[in-house]
């Protein structure tokens, strides 16, 4: 394993170095975008997730409900993130037939409705199953 690790370390450093060399001419324009990801995540996104988790624990003390709602929130956030460039286009290319000619807001609303219906149904069903299993053990 030691050999594999040393090889990976050497190859990784070389590849990243090659990338850095390729990146050099664009670095002044890209630097802000490169550092923005980790900074926004560590200082904003992750603390928000933590706070949301704490709040969820207070509002939904039931473990089964908490799991389902947490999953619903995570999937909702994913869909919203992916939709950002579709609904926000600061410097778009010239108009292209077939590109972004859909109503993304409505589509997203339909997906979220379906998602939360599923979350609700899933939570109710697994709560019921858990209760039934508990009752069987009691008997």
């Amino acid at each position, binding site marked *: 394993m030691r050999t594999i690790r040393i090889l990976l370390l050497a190859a990784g450093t070389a590849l990243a170095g090659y990338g850095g060399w390729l990146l050099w001419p664009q670095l002044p324009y890209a630097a802000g975008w490169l550092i923005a990801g980790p900074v926004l995540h560590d200082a904003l996104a992750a603390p928000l997730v933590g706070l949301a988790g704490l709040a969820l624990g207070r509002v939904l003390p039931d473990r089964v409900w908490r799991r389902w709602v947490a999953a619903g929130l995570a999937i909702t956030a994913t869909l919203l993130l992916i939709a950002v460039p579709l609904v926000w286009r600061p410097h778009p*290319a010239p108009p292209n037939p*077939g590109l972004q000619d859909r109503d993304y807001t409505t589509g997203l609303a339909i997906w979220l409705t379906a998602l939360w219906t599923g979350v609700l149904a899933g939570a109710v069903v697994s709560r019921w199953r858990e209760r039934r299993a508990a009752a069987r053990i009691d008997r």
Partner: protein
Amino acid sequence: MKASLPRPEAFHSPAHTPTVSARLGLWLGVAFGLCFLTGLASHYAQHPPAWFSWPTRPVSLYRITQGVHVLSGIAAIPLLLAKLWSVYPRLFIRPPRRPPALVATHTAERLSILILLCAAFFELVSGLFNVAQSYPWRFFFIETHYAVAWVAVGALAVHIAVKLPVTRSAFAERPDPDRRAFLRTAWAASTVAVLATAGVTVPWLRRVSALAWRSNGGPQGIPVNRTAAAAGIRVPNDWRLEISWPGATHALSLADLAALPQRTATLPIACVEGWSATAAWTGVAVKDLLAAVGAPTDRPVRVASLEKAGLYATSTLPAAHVADPLTLLALGVNGEILSPDHGYPCRIIAPSRPGVLQTKWVTRLELLR
């Protein structure tokens, strides 16, 4: 009150454990690996080095590799966020003060992770904005996305080298129900993200994928990336297709082209942005066309468009594509004459090529070497 940063022990979510991190890391590694390999393939298909040749079969090869590229990137978005949440407490580990060797390795590891994260976020965000053709930045997308891909894959290899022992013991342990629930959520978010977008390239998902950046819209049922108006195309009345090779030049009118034997080929047009659509293209096989004017058919051909500016005003058909009977100089699509936005009077459509190289508004074919 004195505000202070939390300590790693302050985090209690079941996600914060190596058994979860290692599994998410593996999935993420697969997604990034697919992204890197398919991205490299696309880069080489567009800028082939001397030792490389992109195959002409299967005809959908580029459609598949580029579809995988874009969808594995989409799948990686929730996986990356879940993985980072799982290791978030480690951000608050207090750095050691001594001995110097420990300080140095700690700093080096932190730095390598920072580089990995910068690169990973950058690739996913810039790729996502690029497929929507939204450019809120000043760097040149193609060059920068390509360069940072090498940084990402290199930093990932370093990260794997550092974490290998932890990962191995993490896989030996089976996660408890709460941790499995977290992993299932990450998996579900990734699947949903793919389903919501895969319609750009998977026809039967077109109606389901609400966040697909492409529809079936566009003239003649095929989307258009660059319109004739955007490219500033005006087809002159005396338009001729010029075919040249050392020692000879030939000019054909549109009527001459239409008089040659016509072929119809059902081929996908697949864009670097991951969308693709299949159409029935009709025209003269490039091979037949060259033979008809007495030109050699075994050489690469430089295709020039009426478009003056633009990165893709010319393309080079490799010899393998020139020799392929399915490579057409198309005059029509889906039973109609090509619309101006699809390249009237004629365009190149070849099997298994990036859409940007399927040159429209063709005016000259120049045989190389």
